[in-house]
């Protein structure tokens, strides 16, 4: 899955052309570590000084996921704009996670294991650093890729994930349904797309 799409450049309030790709390589993981982490940790330092909560994913290291590259049941997506990596996602099509919502309980889905947007696209972190966030819609575009992957695998757009607490509003906002907290997964809240909600989401974010 490769293609051009638009994300939103916040400073100029205009569209910016980005490239979605699924041939993610170790070089992309290294880029996330070398360019994203210093910005994220600089923001963490300020947030900590101000007594604000730190992002729960600050310890993530995408290079540790490299052994999964090339596996048929795992698809990595990247989104690049203006030469820089803006987001990464790991989506599983062979996950043991199944749908939990009534009406589709037990059915297979695409499980979004990890999704991350570059820290310079996150308003709270950039405000902490006295800067404006660069792009919006990166997370939404990656979630659209997950829905497309689901459709390509005849899973009807069904997608599920465990959300970190500070991302719950985002997943609600794109139309995913929260179900229950999962005691087997750090008590994170489980979110799910029904086929209908996935279709609405794809239409709204064209």
């Amino acid at each position, binding site marked *: 899955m490769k293609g051009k799409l638009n994300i939103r450049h916040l400073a100029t309030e205009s569209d910016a052309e980005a490239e979605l790709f699924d041939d993610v390589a170790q070089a992309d993981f290294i880029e996330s570590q070398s360019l994203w982490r210093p910005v994220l940790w600089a923001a963490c330092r300020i947030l900590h000084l101000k007594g604000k909560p730190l992002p729960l994913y600050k310890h993530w290291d995408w290079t540790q996921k490299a052994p999964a590259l090339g596996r048929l049941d795992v698809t990595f997506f990247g989104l690049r704009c203006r030469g820089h990596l803006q987001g990464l996602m790991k989506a599983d*099509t*062979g996950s043991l996670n199944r749908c939990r919502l009534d009406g589709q309980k037990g059915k297979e889905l695409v499980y979004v294991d990890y999704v991350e947007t570059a820290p310079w696209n996150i308003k709270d972190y950039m405000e902490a650093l006295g800067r404006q966030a660069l792009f919006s819609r990166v997370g939404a575009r990656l979630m659209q890729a997950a829905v497309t992957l689901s459709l390509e*695998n005849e899973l009807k757009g069904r997608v599920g994930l465990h959300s970190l607490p500070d991302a719950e509003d985002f997943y609600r906002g794109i139309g995913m349904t929260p179900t229950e907290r999962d005691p087997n997964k750090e008590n994170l809240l489980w979110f799910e797309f029904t086929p209908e909600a996935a279709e609405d989401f794809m239409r709204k974010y064209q």
Partner: protein
Amino acid sequence: MTLMLTEAEMTALDRLCASKDMTKAAVIRQALRLYQTLDERLSRGDKVFVEDEAKKEKAELVVL
């Protein structure tokens, strides 16, 4: 490619297609993903188990 299946294999495939509401191609692709995952784990020396949580029974999965 053309895939020749026995009658029993085709019956099993038809049943999976019906229960999962998927085409034969999608079911076979899904099976290949699962087989690759299991094969990689077993090649590393890992063991794969299936567990009946209610009965507290665990059985090792053997893949040829």
